[in-house]
């Protein structure tokens, strides 16, 4: 089956972001950008499906600025066959707009399976996969920790609040990845070189017939209320005394 993987370029997870003084957002100037960690897991899962002979072709897609080509090349180096960049310039994309752009690519590519990360570590929305499933009418297996081929489609084991849940999905389907689905590999140098020659197509929202808009506006972005470091106690006895008499929590 053909597998489409959607990835997002985000601030690297090791970067401690700072809020801009004018409260319009966080400062991303000269900050290291990477592929969203959950998207790396999505790429890895697609590559493993191909290694098992289940996936026949892996197309990786992103919606973002021209620089998001870097993340597409990373996915190509990890094993994706070709890439699609939906160049949205500097526009901030809502999850719904991203889902509409991806829907247009799904219509074009006709994959049997779409794999996405469950959330991006910048906006922390956790929406795009579910929205894409809604717009395409596909079944969805969110927060996946295991994906298996079944007679009638896929069995997806999901991380839920109380433990694990397994659902059977007919194809085509959308799967979003949780942390324990797999451990992504590193790209080898020869594969990084080879990835430079793999095809990368660039599309625009206009060409896909999708308007970039949002039904919300960000009023301001602030730093969270800080937490002061407290005191170091010297012994268990002192800790218990403080918890009982000062904090009054036990």
């Amino acid at each position, binding site marked *: 089956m053909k597998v489409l993987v959607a990835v997002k370029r985000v601030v690297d997870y090791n970067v401690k972001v700072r809020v801009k003084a004018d409260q319009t957002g966080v400062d991303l100037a000269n900050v290291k950008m990477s592929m969203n960690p959950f998207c790396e897991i999505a790429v890895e899962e697609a590559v493993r499906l191909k290694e098992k002979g289940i996936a026949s072709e892996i197309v990786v897609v992103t919606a973002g600025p021209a620089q998001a080509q870097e993340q597409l090349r990373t996915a190509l180096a990890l094993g994706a066959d070709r890439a699609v960049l939906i160049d949205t310039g500097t526009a901030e994309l809502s999850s719904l707009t991203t889902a509409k752009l991806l829907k247009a690519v799904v219509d074009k590519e006709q994959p049997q399976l779409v794999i996405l990360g469950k959330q991006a570590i910048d906006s922390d929305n956790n929406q795009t996969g579910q929205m894409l499933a*809604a717009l395409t009418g596909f079944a969805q297996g969110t927060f996946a920790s295991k994906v298996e081929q079944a007679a009638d489609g896929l069995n997806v084991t999901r991380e839920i609040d*109380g*433990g694990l849940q397994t659902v059977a999905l007919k194809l085509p389907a959308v799967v979003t990845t949780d942390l324990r689905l797999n451990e992504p590999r590193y790209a080898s140098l020869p594969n990084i070189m080879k990835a430079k020659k793999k095809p990368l197509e660039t599309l625009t929202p206009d060409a896909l017939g999708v308007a970039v808009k949002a039904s*919300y506006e960000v009023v301001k972005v*602030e730093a969270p209320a800080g937490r002061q470091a407290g005191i170091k106690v010297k012994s*268990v006895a002192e800790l218990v005394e403080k918890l009982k008499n000062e904090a009054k929590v036990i």
Partner: protein
Amino acid sequence: MAIIVIADHDNANLFGATLNTVAAAQAIGGDIHVLVAGQNAQPVADAAAKLAGVGKVLLADNAAYAHQLPENVAPLVVELAANYSHVLAAASTNGKNFLPRVAALLDVDQISEIIAVESADTFKRPIYAGNAIATVRSTAPVKVITVRATGFDPVAAEGGSAAVEAVSLVKDAGISSFVGEELAKSDRPELGAAKVVVSGGRGLQNGDNFKILYALADKLGAAVGASRAAVDAGFVPNDMQVGQTGKIVAPQLYIAVGISGAIQHLAGMKDSKVIVAINKDEEAPIFQVADYGLVGDLFELIPELEKAI
């Protein structure tokens, strides 16, 4: 203005996060209705009817909703949403699963994981793992919102007497089905609702050593959590994970044991009222957010603490 809150439940019990979600609805203001979509879920509807501030309970009881599959629940909510200005669900794994599907079908953006209500259309939500707080104004004709439970004090579970009305709409997309589930069984309180949480990290060294935390937790009536490092190392299952990618908790007392304090862990617990950190590395970042820090060997200190309480 009327608000519909989608109940979080397992057909037998109404989950606590729904009480916080109703509280968020009260902060928005307006008539509050609760939808219970399930199968044989009358006990849940009865519990929802007793919640303070709830005006009406809608019960959609059908095999199609037995496991609240999003492919079936979303079209139900979409059809009901026409009567409401706001659609709210807890930011539980269930709410996160079906509500974006509802939003997309309504052609509106969802506002995820709000922690405060500024007005009927303006909300605060954490972004970048809680390292920034965005104030967001929704211009959507219907506001679709998930609510982070720790941001709102729960409404009273008793005191209301709403009518329960049956909803006969049946939506069965027929593209997904429930196969099974493995739920962790525990006599300890649920992580999200516990007043005291004891969490362990890589410092515990293995899963077996978590038993010293269980003993301490049982003495305190506490839930037990873990850092992502402990989960990744295979010490404990993922449903115990506290952090950006796990559960968000804000108990009265949070005891972090052998946890260094990575940003992504802090995102899940830094709103706790009192934080205690026990770690052998006195430079560990966890001490920068802890009210009380104790430096030393956890394998000596935890049993000692258990005896002292």
